[in-house]
């Protein structure tokens, strides 16, 4: 085979959405790669300018539909900064609890689809089975499985219920995690496909503004949760690996599930002991927002998400800007893919956990 251009996507089984990669290939070897994005552009930012804050709130869950609580939190807390209101303690702990559960659900989905990209069919069903437990719980308390619309300005919509159902769910997931590790961590084929492929050094990762598990797999400690006031009450370790290859990213995500489980247990302990207000009782229909700017960061499963709002004092935001982790991971693709073979494309691309709705917004 001579050199040719291979158009991977936008409709392709393993681009998880509609990413298009224009690859220059020589046989199986990749000589060039150009990601083309925008096939899932929904105008999330422009849309906000025509909607009131309350109208915009349900749509932010769709920025990244696998981690709705995180987007919701980023937007809600930015608005809270504009409103200059304090969130009650119980509400912020409920938020942490739900976000960490969401992180586990998101990482489980990543694990399943990643193994599907690598050609293993079964783990997909196993991880979805466990993810289902979390989604069912979310459905019970928010009424929705993925688009929750549960966080409101100044707290959460209503008090959390069925708290005693969470520990068994988390316990099951941690137990099943051991099973996945048995199936994968020492599997020679899995190791040969992920070790030393797509190596990302710390310097490169920082230069490309990579955040989240992808960065922490490249020997970095940067986790926004440690800087956030939200997580001050909780003890957890930062999941971290040194190698920067696909296998390191896999390990970091699995470790993060375990750390999230610890946070969840602590949050449940606090919630069961201490009661209080769950929101400030704000009337969201007539928000009195002054002109100004506010932004808020949150460490999502896919990196740092920032929501920046500029207000001109009207009931609609003047401008909303989203910064999402996956967007930067896509930029990394040409760098990581060139020189590898076609089979590595999915191994590397999948390991970055790129979420296309989050890239295009």
């Amino acid at each position, binding site marked *: 085979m001579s050199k040719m251009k291979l158009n991977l996507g936008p409709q392709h089984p*393993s681009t998880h959405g509609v990413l298009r990669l224009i690859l220059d290939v020589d046989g*199986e070897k990749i000589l060039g790669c150009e990601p083309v994005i925008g096939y899932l552009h929904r105008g999330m930012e422009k849309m906000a300018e025509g909607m009131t804050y309350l109208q915009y709130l349900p749509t932010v869950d769709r920025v990244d539909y696998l981690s709705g609580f995180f987007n919701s939190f980023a937007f809600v807390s930015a608005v809270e900064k504009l409103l200059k209101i304090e969130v009650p303690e119980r509400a912020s702990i409920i938020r942490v609890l739900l976000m960490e559960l969401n992180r586990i659900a998101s990482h489980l989905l990543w694990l399943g689809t990643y*193994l599907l990209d690598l050609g*293993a*069919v*079964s783990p997909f*069903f196993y991880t979805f089975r466990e993810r289902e437990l979390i989604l069912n719980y979310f459905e019970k308390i928010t009424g929705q499985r993925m688009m929750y619309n549960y966080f409101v300005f100044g707290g959460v919509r209503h008090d959390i219920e069925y708290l005693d159902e969470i520990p068994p769910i988390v316990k099951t997931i941690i137990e099943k995690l051991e099973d996945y590790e048995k199936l994968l961590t020492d599997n020679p084929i899995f190791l040969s496909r992920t070790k030393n492929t797509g190596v990302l050094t710390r310097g490169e990762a920082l230069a490309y503004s990579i955040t989240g598990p992808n960065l922490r797999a490249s020997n970095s400690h940067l986790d926004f949760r440690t800087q956030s006031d939200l997580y001050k009450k909780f003890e957890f370790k930062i999941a971290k690996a040194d190698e920067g290859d696909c296998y390191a990213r896999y390990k970091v995500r699995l470790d993060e599930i375990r750390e999230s489980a610890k946070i969840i247990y602590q949050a449940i302990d606090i919630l069961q002991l201490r009661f209080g207000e769950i929101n400030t009782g704000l009337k969201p229909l007539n928000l009195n927002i002054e002109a100004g700017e506010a932004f808020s960061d949150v460490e999502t499963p896919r990196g740092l998400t920032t929501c920046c709002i500029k207000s001109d004092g009207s009931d609609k935001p003047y401008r909303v800007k989203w910064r999402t982790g996956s967007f930067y991971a896509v930029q990394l693709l040409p760098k990581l893919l060139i020189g590898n073979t076609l*089979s590595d494309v999915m191994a590397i691309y999948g390991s970055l956990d790129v979420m296309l709705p989050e890239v295009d917004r």
Partner: protein
Amino acid sequence: MNYLYCAFIELLAKYHFPEGLALIIFPLLPFCILAAGLLIMVLFLVLAERKILGFVTQRKGPNRVGYWGLMQTVADAFKLLCKENITPSAADKFLFTLAPLIAFIPVMLVWGILPYNAEFDLMSTPANLIFYLFLAFMPVLGIFLGGWASNSKYSIIGSVRAIAQAISYELPIAFSLLGIVVLSSSLNLTQITLAQSSVLGPARWFIIPAFIGFIVVFVSVVAELNRCPFDLPEAESELVAGYSTEYSGMRFALFYITEYSMMFANAAFIVVLFLGGYLSPFGNYLSNIFFGDSMTANILVYFEQTFWFLLKTFIILFLFILIRATYPRLQSDKLLKLSWTILLPLSIVNLFVCMLIKAIGGAL
């Protein structure tokens, strides 16, 4: 076959058919039985694979069409029959149509070579092992041709992978088979089967002296079948559907049937070579134990032999399916490396081990 032949002539005579007709029909009958029986077997093999995959992943598998989903593949086949045969405008139309046939026809022949029981080996030529190898390689040509004629990039990459894979895995198979040929001193599949017979059942099955060869052939056969973890030519997460991307309708169904028939044939081939073919695992046939040396026993033995043959084949097929459920896919370059650096040397070692065992056995 004499018993069956007499019974058949009696049956025809009962309905006043001339005896000459029996002479013509009788040799053709087994092929008809084979073609019909095995195509039905393939239908249920597809279903079995989906059911087992479902079981492994804690699903129910297909369970809507017919009782317990039994008619699912029949429905699928019917759907494929009804679908339009699309030929891409840029494709080479003649080769595009020819490719599925080139893949499919040798498979029907391959089935005829296998010895299903002591009488039911239809092409028992002195060297039908070589003929089997030749025919078993043919579907890859069909796959290559199909991918190339489609004139689509994914198809071409898939077919190039298929041909590279087939070439690298054909050699370890051939070398391992040499070990078997040395052990049995024959190139005939029936002779190879009979060379493994003993009163102790599995004691003389070739899996024991040629265990390395068994492993090598097993891995290579999985690779040649393009099955997981070697399913690179049709890696759906990389190449959409590989060589069959542009195929639809009945042409696609032919490729599909080819894949599963070859899976069955190759599993049966492993059984013949290493697991004693149609021989009973208990040394004596059960029908001989229960019915002595009667006429009933002599007819029942044929069915029993086929039963053992199929049972062993299904065990191998079950392993194929379990492997598919468990492993991720290999990388293309590592796939070739595995063949040339591990399997080929191992198969040569196996050949020497077999020669040594044969020499010692001959000396004793």
